[in-house]
């Protein structure tokens, strides 16, 4: 695999994404949220303590003062959860048409006639989407951290690390979306499968509970088999949220969940490579 070729494909995906209406809306909404937070949140900080706080003019902290760190640990997990759930939903919609567009008839033929290997094309699309997802996560979480830093005079990298969990979860989902696009070249199907994995990934986090609801026997065994390799998206969000909230990472739980999600995503990217390699265009 030639990294330069992969980067060239990814760079084209990014150049095109700059003009994507969905991504413009996504970044616009994040920006709007950050501006609203910056304007609506009014905090009085004295010696690391918040003596008064207002949000949209309504008192949120009054009477008793609160430590800055205490407020951060309660706000940051909320932001991480927002990124993990709302951010993922937006990203599924925003990037669903990227691969089908690159692989559309009349365009893929020209691309494949150039000095480019088919798996490099797939890897380039995945890399491009990875950069888009990472940028929007960084923009959202970084922006929120920046606003809070200005207001509280205290910074923390914990939410960024927490948001990485959202990124890992999304990339597992996008592996499936990419493989779907390689088979069908349809943005709707790509998004559909993305939401399917998202829903199943949330349910898989409470696998034991879900399995208990299913009648024991072949159906339950089959459900367990299907849920086994799925990325545990809620668990990933919990890990990110807990870390952003100042708790230590439980590595024994985090490593298999993160590793499993990465492996799940890469498995589908490999599947997409195989599909594109054997397919006639």
């Amino acid at each position, binding site marked *: 695999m030639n990294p330069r*070729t992969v980067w*060239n*494909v990814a*760079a*084209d995906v990014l*150049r*095109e994404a*700059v*003009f994507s209406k969905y991504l413009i809306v996504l970044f616009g909404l994040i920006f709007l949220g950050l501006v609203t937070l910056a304007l609506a949140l009014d905090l009085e900080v004295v010696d690391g303590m918040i003596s008064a706080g207002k949000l949209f003019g309504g008192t949120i902290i009054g009477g008793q003062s609160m430590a800055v760190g205490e407020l951060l640990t309660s706000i940051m997990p909320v932001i991480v959860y927002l990124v993990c759930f709302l951010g993922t939903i937006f990203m599924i919609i925003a990037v669903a048409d990227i691969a089908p*567009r690159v692989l*559309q*008839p*009349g*365009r893929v*033929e*020209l*691309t*494949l*006639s*150039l*000095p*480019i*290997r088919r798996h490099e094309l797939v890897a380039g699309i995945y890399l491009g989407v990875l950069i888009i997802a990472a940028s929007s996560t960084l923009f959202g979480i970084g922006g929120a951290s920046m606003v809070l830093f200005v207001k509280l005079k205290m910074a923390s990298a914990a939410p960024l690390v927490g948001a990485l969990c959202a990124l890992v979860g999304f990339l597992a989902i996008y592996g499936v979306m990419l493989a779907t696009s390689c088979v069908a070249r349809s943005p709707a199907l790509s998004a559909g499968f993305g939401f399917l994995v998202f829903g199943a990934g949330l349910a898989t986090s409470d696998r034991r509970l879900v399995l208990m609801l299913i009648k024991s026997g072949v159906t339950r065994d089959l459900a367990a088999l299907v849920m086994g390799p799925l990325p545990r998206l809620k668990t990933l969000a919990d890990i990110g949220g807990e870390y952003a909230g100042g708790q230590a990472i439980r590595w024994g739980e985090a490593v298999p969940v993160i590793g499993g999600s990465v492996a799940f995503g890469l498995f589908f990217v490999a599947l997409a490579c195989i599909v594109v390699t054997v397919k*006639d*265009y």
Partner: protein
Amino acid sequence: MTVALRARGIEKRFGSVRAVTGLDLEVPLGACFGLIGENGAGKTTFIKMVLGITRPNAGELSVLGGSPHDVTLRRHIGYLPERLQIPESFSPLRFLASVGRVKGLTRPQIVDETRRVLELVGLDPVAWKRSTGGFSKGMRQRTGLAAALLGRPKLLVLDEPTDGIDPLGRAQIRDLIADAVREGTTVFLNSHLLAETEKICDHVAVLSQGRVVVRGALDVLKRKDAFRVRFKKADGDVDHATAAGFAPVDDLGDSRVFKLEGQSAEALSAALAKALGAGLIVLEVMPELKDLETILREAIVPSARGAA
């Protein structure tokens, strides 16, 4: 290497449909080769196999002496697909830069080459930085053609290059292809416009139901073994000419045109000698040529009957 493209026994099936069957073809290096045939004859499928976009089920295919799947070889191939889709947000400059980067051109080369090919295809410089989303079909086609010409390819594969282009633009593209051939580029052209193909190409192959039914140099294929002779009008010229083996065709006032059909050049010489001996004055001798449409019709009808 004297052959730019060699195909031996190429087969391609899509499910139960045989798109290409036992196709044999050789495209000489430096030729301008036209592939013609009806819709569904397998022309685009064959072109895609030449470029490694589609894989044949059987047969051997060699392009510029290598495999169509050899990635390094593709630096020397330029391709214009039949229904090119350029990212709508891209300007021609951005699109060509993207193609140039994948082709391995350096930044200065991209700048120089982009300017050269855009001027060559006659795209208005005002449009160079505009997004192609608002382009007409002809402008998009010119941009695609510029991409195919980028990096001076050794083999230029053009699928309907003049599709959507106005008559003056077509003539410009014809000249451009002729220039490329003069510079040593092999051109492999698929077009429904037979008059265009006839003007541009020196070799043609007719594809029917997935196989080559006629192929060769165009000037050879166009020969009819029939001649028209214009004699100066004189008393008894009809009798003398028919006696020499000619058939009357037209009376042009001060001259008469006669036809000698299904005869060789030797037979023509003998007939002319006989007519001249009888006192007729020859004004003009013209070999009768078939046009490409006739070649296509003659090639396809028997092959279709054979298949039936």
